[in-house]
């Protein structure tokens, strides 16, 4: 069978039919998959919260801080056990990664100690270097690498910046920028969590912004607490 000739009618019809069919198909699939996708996203988020916080039985509704200090929002999930809050998971995005944004979920107990972290997205970091982020800081100084881990430390008491910058965190080998990004994420998350100035981990340029945001957050915390 010969090809259809290039008449306006043929071109119009073939393009229209193809786009309508593909569009309808995609619409149907998007409709069918919307529920499983939402469930999968929620499950992934819950797993991430579970991995970074102390044992809990309920998670609060997420509370979004519009500007966590760098113009991007932070999301805070308070977790409680037997009706008493035991900690929070804070999801922040830092812009300081080697390849742009890095998304991290940080967990804190009520004293502000880091109970865990989960790197949700470091796909822009270099594999083999910055992409070691999800594991590098988990330890508590084993493997003959003192001070590598950040778990159990309190950003309010310890100076959680890269050793090169005078802090306590050993940088990932040959990935100081990614490490700085991680430290920035800690500072952002801690600021969002406490609502106080925790910018020890942030570079001086970001410090003012963090302080400012922290104040706003503090006010919001007060407002919410007084409502209860």
């Amino acid at each position: 069978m010969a090809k259809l000739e290039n008449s306006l009618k043929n071109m119009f019809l073939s393009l229209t039919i193809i786009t309508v069919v593909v569009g309808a198909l995609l619409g149907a699939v998007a409709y069918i998959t919307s529920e499983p996708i939402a469930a999968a996203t929620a499950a992934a988020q819950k797993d991430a919260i579970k991995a970074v916080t102390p044992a809990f039985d309920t998670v609060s509704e997420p509370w979004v801080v519009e500007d966590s200090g760098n113009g991007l929002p932070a999301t805070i999930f308070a977790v409680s056990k037997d009706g008493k809050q035991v900690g929070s998971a804070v999801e922040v995005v830092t812009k300081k990664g080697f390849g742009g944004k890095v998304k991290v979920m940080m967990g804190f107990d009520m004293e502000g100690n880091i109970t865990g972290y989960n790197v949700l997205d470091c796909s822009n970091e270099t594999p083999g270097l910055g992409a070691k982020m999800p594991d590098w800081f988990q330890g508590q100084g084993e493997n003959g690498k003192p001070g590598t881990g950040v778990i159990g430390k309190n950003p309010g008491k310890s100076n959680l910046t890269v050793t090169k910058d005078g802090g306590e965190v050993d940088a990932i080998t040959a990935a100081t920028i990614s490490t700085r990004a991680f430290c920035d994420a800690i500072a952002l998350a801690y600021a969002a969590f406490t609502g106080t100035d925790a910018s020890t981990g942030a570079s001086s340029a970001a410090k003012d912004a963090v302080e400012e945001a922290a104040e706003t957050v503090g006010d919001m915390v007060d407002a919410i607490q007084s409502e209860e």
Partner: protein
Amino acid sequence: MSKLGIIINGLIKENPTFVLLLGMCPTLGTTSSALNGMSMGLATMVVLILANMVIAAIARFIPDKVHIPCYIVVIAGFVTLVQLLLKAYLPEIDKSLGIFIPLIVVNCIVLGRAEAFAAKNGVIDSACDGIGIGLGFTIALTILGACREFLGTGAIFGFGIMPENYGALTFVLAPGAFITLAYLSAIFNKLFNK
């Protein structure tokens, strides 16, 4: 050409990466490790087979002047379809492949094969071409990724072979992609396509 011949042709004689030098953007971008390269290759292969079959089936109903927009709609449709299904039912795989999938739309291998092969051949032959070219792409990307990962970090598929600090970081970064690709194409063409 026999069905097997078409597959072999895509694998060796018209290997998209080493011989046709098509789809360089995802090739250079995603081969920083063996696993990333292989994932990208496999995702592309699925879309390539599906798009080739559909285009082979509908090619004769499409007037020449509008065939490119029609093919692009079909390809982009499949890519989105695969992405939605992965997100919904295989979120684990989506997590590792997620960023690569939208890149397939702009991979010129898919449109290239639609133009050069699927539009002129039958559905089954086009599926075979998709398998051959897809496998060729996957193998090429895996080898390229493995070489770069090994030279750069001393590991393959994340398993350390050499001591921790072994490796020239250049190979994981962009310049290493060009160097490795050039050497591998040279070796490949010397071996198979004299």
